[in-house]
């Protein structure tokens, strides 16, 4: 009677918001919309692991990994030992998993996962999607005069493990066994002209990168499970370099790798038998190709597993494995050198590498995944059928055109569009905790705005009657990720508010940033688009960031006609116009040095702010304008400059007839 081969249950399972035949038994704590589960318990090199990715709200993702053991009564259970993302919102520490399968020789239908410990137990049913954990594409090209080498006959060299299957193993098959559904690009086998390597016909990293840009048919300015494998003669470094993952520049990295057929990997040691020399070369070439491709998955060398360098390190604590038999080790550096390595090398990645490739958060592994959320935007956001709120972003400018250097300040408005009063946290907009902002300059990857600070407020709730709104401002040009809006061009901005079960997505705003007016603006820009200046503008001043204050003063003095000068004037005046105390040392003794308010300087600095209130309101927005008028007015009055304060208020009164309704800076209900 023929034996029946069990159908592996390992692979990818998915859950969608409205699956046809799978509903949660009990609701989750969070509005999880899309989930993936990777079950890894059988098939090739099982890691006895399950991992999952959940999208929480709009911007939140949690990746989790659990080690599994067979459970009494079937299935598996285990502890979650790794979480990444919004971990505070995902408290579970245990999973129990069962697979639904018509019979053991048939493909599974679904898997049921029960999460427990750390929150109310809930169960989720995921549908079977694939026997692989990820899909990916490989393209193999070569330089003119060189050949693509995709395979190796594992039985061709006598130095091999006795148990090793004799087969024609391909690069694609190596990565299939690692868990990837590999497709080969139709653009493969392109002959890249050797002139791309310059007059010396040897490739530099830059030339390789250029060749990839031109000849890789799958190239895209985004992260992608895809890799370009390029075969050439030699790197400019000479025969000592057998291959290199050269793609370590730019926003998308780890997408390209090169193998140098005429490097040391073509030179068998003197003692190698003439009969096996060809197999030796073929083997080293194959090892190099798989090794370099492994680097594109962010795999380090075996002896570097624990290494942290330049602020980068392993994803979990690891130990160096200089003797490991893996594609990621150098055969010639192990004890006993190359013969010892291949004597028990099984042409595979070791378990800790497979765990990483299959189960680590995708952004760690996926080729080119440098900028999170790129090309996702809010296209997949789940918006309620009958929304309770509307989320608007707007500006107070007559057109959405910004001068070069001019910061962008948005007004956010959350409006109750239902026919019932709604309770909302008073500071739901002000804290920014629930607000996600995406900024995309045309031609560049999208970026998520990360504010310099999240504010923690006491969460009093206010009642919004139908039609009422909360509003607040958002300085969006700069944050902890740098200046998101700086270069001239067109930008798309969209915000979303994660509000319980509802994701409230704003309108899309398009703005244009103009080119510099003159060389002066270009020169100042080099210092202006800095972290210090961004922080001073965001926090309305600093007594500590003196270099940044100098740049702001330069803008006020040299570019008083520019809107940026209005923005710069405010933090400078707020800093100059008040008394400060700074800690200093006199012969090692700490002392507080008092700095008197310089009302004259503050007033002079405010000239751009005062000169044209309509322009000031347009660039600051009405919310911030009113806030600053009140704050500056109080400061000046207390400093004895009531006349100047009165001038601010006069302007305020004048402006009200032409501007939006007065609003305080901060959440406030308005009709």
């Amino acid at each position, binding site marked *: 009677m023929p034996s029946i081969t069990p159908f592996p249950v390992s692979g990818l399972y998915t859950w969608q918001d409205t699956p046809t035949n799978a509903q949660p038994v009990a609701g989750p704590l969070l509005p999880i919309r899309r989930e993936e589960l990777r079950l890894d318990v059988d098939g090739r090199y099982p890691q006895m692991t399950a991992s999952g990715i959940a999208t929480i709200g709009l911007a939140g993702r949690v990746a989790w990994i659990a080690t599994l053991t067979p459970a009494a009564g079937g299935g598996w259970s285990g502890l979650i030992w790794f979480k990444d993302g919004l971990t505070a919102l995902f408290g579970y520490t245990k999973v129990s998993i069962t697979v639904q399968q018509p019979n053991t020789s048939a493909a599974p239908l679904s898997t049921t996962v029960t999460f427990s410990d750390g929150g109310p137990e809930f169960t989720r049913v995921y549908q079977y999607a694939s026997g692989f954990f990820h899909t990916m594409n490989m393209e193999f090209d070569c330089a003119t005069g060189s050949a693509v080498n995709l395979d190796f006959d594992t039985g061709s060299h006598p130095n091999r493990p006795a148990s090793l299957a004799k087969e024609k193993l391909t690069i694609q098959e190596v990565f299939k066994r690692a868990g990837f559904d590999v497709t080969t690009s139709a653009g493969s086998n392109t002959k890249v002209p050797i002139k791309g390597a310059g007059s010396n016909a040897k490739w530099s990293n830059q030339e390789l990168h250029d060749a990839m840009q031109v000849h890789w048919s799958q190239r895209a300015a985004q992260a992608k499970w895809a890799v370009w494998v390029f075969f050439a003669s030699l790197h400019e*470094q*000479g*025969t*000592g*370099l*057998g*291959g*290199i*993952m050269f793609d*370590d520049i730019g926003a998308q990295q780890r997408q390209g790798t090169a193998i140098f057929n005429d*490097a*040391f*990997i073509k030179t068998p040691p003197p003692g190698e038998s003439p009969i096996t020399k060809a197999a030796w070369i073929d083997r080293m070439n194959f090892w*190099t190709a798989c*090794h*370099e491709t492994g*680097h594109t998955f962010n795999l*380090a*060398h075996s*002896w*570097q597993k624990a*290494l942290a*360098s*330049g602020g980068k390190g392993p994803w979990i604590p690891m130990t160096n494995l200089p003797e490991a038999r893996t594609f990621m080790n*150098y055969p*010639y550096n192990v004890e006993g050198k190359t013969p010892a390595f291949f004597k028990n090398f099984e042409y595979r990645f070791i378990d800790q590498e497979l765990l990483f490739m299959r189960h680590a958060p995708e952004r760690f592994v996926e080729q080119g995944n440098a900028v999170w959320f790129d090309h996702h935007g809010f296209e997949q956001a789940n918006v309620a059928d009958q929304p309770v709120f509307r989320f608007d972003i707007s500006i107070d400018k007559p057109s959405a055109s910004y001068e070069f250097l001019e910061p962008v300040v948005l007004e956010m408005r959350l409006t109750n569009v239902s026919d019932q009063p709604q309770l909302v946290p008073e500071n739901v907009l002000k804290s920014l905790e629930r607000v996600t902002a995406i900024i995309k300059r045309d031609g560049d990857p999208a970026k998520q705005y990360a504010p310099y600070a999240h504010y923690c407020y006491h969460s009093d709730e206010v009642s919004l009657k139908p039609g009422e709104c909360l509003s607040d401002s958002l300085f969006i040009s700069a944050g902890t990720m740098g200046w998101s809006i700086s270069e001239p061009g067109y930008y798309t901005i969209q915000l979303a508010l994660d509000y319980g079960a509802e994701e409230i997505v704003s309108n899309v705003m398009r703005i244009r940033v103009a080119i510099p007016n003159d060389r002066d603006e270009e020169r100042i820009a080099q210092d202006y688009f800095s972290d210090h200046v961004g922080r001073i503008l965001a926090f309305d001043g600093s007594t500590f960031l003196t270099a940044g204050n100098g740049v702001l003063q330069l803008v006020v003095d040299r570019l008083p006609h520019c809107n940026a000068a209005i923005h710069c004037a405010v933090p400078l005046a707020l800093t100059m116009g008040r008394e400060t105390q700074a800690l200093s040392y006199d012969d090692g003794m700490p002392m507080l040095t008092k700095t008197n308010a310089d009302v004259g300087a503050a007033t002079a600095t405010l000239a751009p702010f005062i000169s044209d209130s309509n322009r000031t309101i347009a660039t600051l927005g009405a919310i911030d304008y009113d806030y600053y008028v009140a704050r500056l007015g109080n400061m000046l009055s207390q400093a004895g400059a009531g006349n100047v304060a009165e001038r601010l208020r006069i302007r305020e009164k004048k402006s009200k007839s032409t501007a939006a309704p007065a609003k305080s800076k901060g959440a406030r209900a308005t009709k």
Partner: protein
Amino acid sequence: MATMNIALEEGFDNDRVLVSVNGKRFERSGVTTKLQIGLAEQFETHVADGTVTIDVELPERSLNGSYELDANDMVYLGISVEGQTLHFRHSSQTFGYA
């Protein structure tokens, strides 16, 4: 006369490296290991056949070490930093990086 290829390999991170080969001094700054190949940079010098003394110093890290080898025709020297120690290796054949 032998040719010596000196490779600064693992463990360098924007370092200033002083290498002395039989008293002939070389200085490299900003030396950083390219992790995907385990190599920062290489350079060559010529030495008289016979015993060669190589002294290496990373002054900003207060690291130094010394190594002796017999040079003959072509010799490859690899220098790595591991923790607070300098490691040396040499070979008559090129080191392979990948």
